């Protein structure tokens, strides 16, 4: 087997050194009736070529986003990632290293985590950020738990514009932890009255902008209301590129900002791995979940970086920890940092404008199609259409024509009676031809 260096002669010699007569002597603690006699009923070893054939055959049954006009978003977005990013994250020293528990030989990881934290804090307009979470949805769940710790209250209010899967993650966690959740009705037009839902019993309000239907939301009045009521405002985003163009949640008074960082540096990957971003006000840093990287000096006085404030974490605090998280999304955070470094504020701003300009163009084109109504007045690169027919069927028909039209709301909210709504995303990868193909295909089926 190509990955196993020991030869049979090595194995024999080594058993002799150990003083064992057979390999099963070393497994003697496994009760003999539990030791497997034969091999599991699975195929035998295969060479690279054969594995590549099997995997390629499976991959070939999927339609890749780049092969068709592609407008699917709602939490994950197709963007162009520079070649440099994927090359660098495959450097052995990044790819095959571990959590930096020995900082003297992990300064590479630690320095990029410090850079990542700085970038995330700047983008969100917050004071501190952690070294990443699994993804946006789990970051959202952790933010709610953190708000409960900070406020010593246990009731969260979820906006009807929050991605339904994020809301499900929060609800599942809360149900298990015995906490209360109030979920607002799906808010297709961004007109819900969240202010009325905030009172002295509420720990936090979770609101997404751009929301799942694509609406941009002004959080300023809500943050004031939260401050008066002693509740925390948790702002969520699923499209981080929007932060290149729109007012960041930190500037609108958010206490905790969480979101999905996939759009920068990371592929779609059918849902993961992604990278959760988590930022907060400095005063709450000791209640934050996840790893934090901090600056310090070494024995010679040279600047260096270490994981810090680990007394919050499970390996020290065990059942008193702020979270059970151990592994994070290190390599995806690296991809984010490299792509963000290439962009800089200049590139990110322009990328944001291109996304927005493309979406505006598409919205105008679609407005002219009979049976299509654009619901959004303010949006970034994604908006919601009301169709004259159930959106799920339209999406299937367009897929058969080789156009990926978007996400039917019924896929995210099956019982909400919103079957005629379609969420459409438009990024820098979409061309005029793509947009024309979508419009044409919709004209044909509506």
């Amino acid at each position, binding site marked *: 087997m190509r990955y196993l260096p020991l030869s049979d002669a090595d194995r024999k010699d080594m058993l002799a050194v150990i003083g064992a007569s057979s390999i099963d002597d070393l497994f003697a603690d496994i009760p003999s009736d539990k030791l497997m006699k034969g091999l599991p009923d699975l195929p035998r070893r295969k060479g690279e070529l054969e594995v590549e054939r099997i995997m390629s055959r499976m991959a070939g049954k999927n339609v890749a986003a780049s092969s068709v006009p592609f407008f699917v978003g709602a939490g994950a977005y197709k963007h162009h990632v520079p070649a440099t990013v994927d090359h660098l994250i495959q450097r052995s020293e990044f790819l095959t290293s571990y959590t930096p528990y020995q900082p003297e*030989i992990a*300064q590479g990881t630690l320095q990029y985590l410090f850079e990542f934290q700085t970038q995330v804090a700047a983008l969100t307009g917050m004071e501190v950020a952690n070294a990443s979470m699994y993804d946006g949805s789990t970051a959202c769940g952790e933010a709610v738990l953190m708000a409960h710790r900070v406020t010593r209250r246990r009731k969260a209010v979820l906006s009807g514009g929050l991605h339904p899967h994020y809301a499900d993650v929060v609800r599942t966690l809360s149900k298990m932890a015995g906490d209360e959740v109030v979920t607002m009705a799906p808010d297709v037009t961004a007109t819900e009255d969240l202010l009325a839902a905030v009172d002295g019993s509420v720990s936090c309000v979770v609101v997404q902008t751009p929301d799942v239907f694509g609406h941009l939301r002004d959080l300023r009045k809500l943050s004031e209301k939260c401050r008066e009521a002693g509740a925390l405002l948790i702002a969520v985003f699923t499209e981080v590129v929007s932060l290149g163009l729109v007012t960041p949640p930190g500037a609108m008074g958010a206490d905790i900002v969480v979101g999905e960082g996939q759009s920068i540096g990371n592929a779609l990957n059918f849902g993961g791995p992604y990278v959760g971003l988590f930022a907060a006000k400095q005063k709450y840093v000791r209640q934050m979940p996840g790893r934090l990287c901090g600056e310090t000096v070494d024995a010679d006085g040279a600047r260096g970086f270490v994981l810090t404030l680990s007394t919050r974490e499970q390996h020290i605090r065990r059942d008193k920890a702020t979270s059970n998280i151990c592994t994070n999304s290190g390599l995806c955070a690296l991809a984010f940092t490299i792509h963000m470094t290439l962009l800089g504020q200049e590139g990110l701003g322009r990328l944001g404008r291109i996304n927005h300009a493309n979406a505006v163009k598409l919205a105008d084109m679609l407005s002219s199609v009979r049976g299509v109504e654009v619901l959004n007045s303010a949006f970034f690169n994604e908006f919601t259409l009301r169709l004259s027919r159930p959106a799920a069927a339209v999406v299937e028909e367009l897929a058969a024509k080789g156009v990926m039209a978007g996400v039917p709301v019924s896929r995210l909210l099956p019982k909400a009676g919103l079957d005629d709504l379609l969420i459409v995303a438009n990024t820098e990868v979409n061309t005029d031809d793509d947009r024309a193909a979508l419009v044409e295909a919709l004209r044909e089926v509506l």
Partner: protein
Amino acid sequence: MLNRQGRPTAPGLASVSAHETFTGNKALLQEEPLLFEIGRYDVTGVDLDEPQGFTPRLGGLERSDGIGLPGLSEPETMRHFVRLSQKNYGIDTGLFPLGSCTMKHNPRLNERMARLPGFADVHPLQPQSTVQGALELMNELGRWLTELTGMPAVALSPKAGAHGELCGMMAIKAAIEAKGEGATRRTVLVPDSAHGTNPATAALIQFDVKPVPVREDGTVDPEAVRALAGPDTAAIMLTNPNTCGLFEKDVAKIAEIIHAAGGYFYCDGANYNAIVGKARPGDLGVDAMHINLHKTFSTPHGGGGPGSGPVVLSERLAAFAPVPFVRTDAAGFALVEDEEGTEAFGRITAFHGQTGMYVRALSYMLSHGADGCRQASEDAVLNANYVRARLADLMSLPFGNRPCMHEVLFDDAWLKDTGVSTLDFAKAMIDEGYHPMTVYFPLVVHGAMLVEPTESESRASLDLFIATLRDLAMAAKRGDAARFTGAPYLAPRRRLDETRAARSPVLRWTPPAPVQEAAE
């Protein structure tokens, strides 16, 4: 003829000691500032055309301030991150004996497969008719995991090991509540040798954690479990093989006691890599066990993630698995995303889990096959025992010189009166070119050193590692403390001040304050 101009072809008798360099660089090892210190606000390494002729529809929410993030050109970016990478130790650099973390070889075939456009460039919310291959991948991975473990079901979506623990314990909680015992069954037994994630997970979903002491031989005594188990017992969280590197020989009896008390057996599968193809958790009474794909099935650790932690489930828990999951029907594969009509306890992540990691793990499994998987476990155990046998005369084994599983645990009794601590010993290993073993874990032995060589090491590599540890051990014993207490001397950084980092945390770069001009 070469070197006519008098270029020397052999080194002269130059000074033997290095001097301080002007740059601070040491030849190939380059100092590297933070990107914020070398970037410029008007530079970008991505060529994009400014869009023309559109009217923004941002509802007055256009960003008014600068973000404050400089950019680098592409060559600068490349150099910045390559230099950073050179300050890291990885599996490809050398032996990485980090116990309980399983730093085995990461085959690059798996990376190539994960980047096939049919996997990497597929959106989680595409119509299911366009992702049949991705669903087949999930189904196939599930088949391998359930077959290897002898368990009937699997929940794939947990994002990492600790997330898998959470998923498994949530399934247990849901099962208890379905039986109407939610108010009474609230205690989770956790041995002292457990990973910190176990008690943290149980506490997160409001279980009361009750510790189980570990007996003299490093394993859990079923009688100790019997004494604690009762009608309040929700579950036991037992790591097997355990963190002392030992197989819990009474595991079947412990499972029986827990089941008799009406509780569930959660197995922390972090060390499953020792027994793949040798024993099936399903035969040992396990109800739920997470599998760290980044340990046992070799998906890269990537400097601390991403992981992937599928949970295999027993018949009693299978129905409570979270959405989404794959179902096969006449039309092919279908993804069940809606809880309604199922007994699923809920949803734990936005989409379908770490598909990119599923690709890598399945590629690893197909490459190894059932036979190679078993061989990998046997070699991992053989390598650990070889290290044990050849160091047992110098370093102390807290549970006696007996066979271990895939990792061998030493304590610091042998360092007594040397002035050298476990940490010092670890730091001296860095100077010798090795990543240290796991230190001070598990907590049940003093000054723990947990060595996991993995199956990826050749005998020659192990021999050099053993010789190095022997040399260090003898140096410590003969009083050469300075080699240890000041170590590392040769790493990119000397020992770092963690106390200072925690006392006044600096967690981000901030621009230096502008220099005040002196008043004229």
